[in-house]
């Protein structure tokens, strides 16, 4: 009687090897993703933009008052331009850790950093 794996062809072994390599690499990628790795922008009701924090860019977000400018760079995500009267959203500094929020209330722009939270995070929420 032949052993089960003796039926395997070279192609079968190749497929299984590729699957395992991809699975292990995928798991390592997910596990190694930085804390606070995803940025989600909503208008309070629905999500209107998402991005990863490692993709540095500038985006213009449309709100009822006009366009709010959001910059994603090495410091995190921050609002650098806004049509709102008080501009307090522009003085909030960057959001970079899971749970950090930026908001322009008049223009209804809400920026949240999502991602897995670790027990050793320096803080859970920011009092500002």
């Amino acid at each position, binding site marked *: 009687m032949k052993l089960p794996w003796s039926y395997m062809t070279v192609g079968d072994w190749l497929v299984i090897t590729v699957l395992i390599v991809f699975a292990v690499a995928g798991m390592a990628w997910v596990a190694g993703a930085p804390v606070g790795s995803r940025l989600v922008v909503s208008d309070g009701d629905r999500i209107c933009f998402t991005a990863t924090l490692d993709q540095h860019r500038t985006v213009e977000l449309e709100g009822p008052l006009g366009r709010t400018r959001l910059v994603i760079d090495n410091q995190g995500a921050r609002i650098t331009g806004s049509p709102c*009267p*008080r501009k307090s959203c522009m003085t909030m500094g960057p959001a970079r850790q899971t749970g950090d929020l930026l908001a322009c209330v008049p223009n209804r722009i809400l920026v949240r950093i999502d991602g897995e939270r670790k027990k050793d995070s320096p803080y859970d929420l920011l*009092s*500002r």
Partner: protein
Amino acid sequence: MPWNRPLILGLLIALLALTWWRLQPQADEVRRSQFMMGTVVEILAQGEDPSALDEAVTAAFAEMARLDRLLSSHRQESDISRLSLSETGLTVATETAEVIALGLQVARRSAGAFDLTLGRLKTLWALDSDSPQVPSLAAITATLDDLGPEALMLSGRMVRKANPALQVDLGGIAKGYAVDRGIAVLKEHGVTAAAINAGGDMYLLGQRLERPWRIGIQHPRQPNAVLVTVQVSDRAVVTSGDYERFFEQNGKRYHHLFDPKSGFPAQGCRSVTIVAESVALADALATAVFVLGPLSGLEMLKGYSGAEGMIVAADGRLYASDGWAAYQVEP
């Protein structure tokens, strides 16, 4: 079909399932945000049943929205707007009376540093508008006439005004009260670990990931920096700072925390953080201490057992109450 093809297919399905499971968000946490009370309110609730958590969070938001309709000075139908429009006063909802009672108590114990009657003064400075401005001294003086804790009297649910022009403003306390009520609703739904954050007015219920909640306190002059971190459970944390809402004119900063005695922004502090048993109290105390300044503010705090505070003075020096160190995490 050779037997090894189903094996490969099975392996592929197993790996896909494992990857899908790994990519799912944590099911024991619900986090939702809404624009409310002129700010963003975020509720984060932890537990084992996501649908029960979701129901609890929905109920908490509904309760906070109900209170906003009662307490907002920007809603014509609210108790506060009706009170400001009335000549002599009116009967308000129980919740409105509770907020006013607490506000008047802090106002008296802070010798008027906390004041619920600054509505007209805030309108004069127009800090929320496109064009805030430094009003004339005469205009400020006229606005301050007949203001102060004595100008508002509460008896049961009846609120009386000493001056028909008096406009009530609960901005320094209403958000905190709404957060307290939101937390009460979460507790009624069996939630034992949660946080509600209404634009910096926050309550931390229970624990976060089997340890107390860690709250970073923003540096008042470095938006990128955290000044200190505190660890709390079942406590409110509120920070008031001159960097939140301000404008500059002729190189001088004018912020939103007004000294009722002068009618100008208080000058003694850059920021005040209070840890207390309720958010409404912490909210009112943060404003009162900011207006009083570091030394008088800390003196007043001694009268509130369970309330601790940290102050960044106008010159950048740090002051803290005796029990503050119990909360602060060493770097």
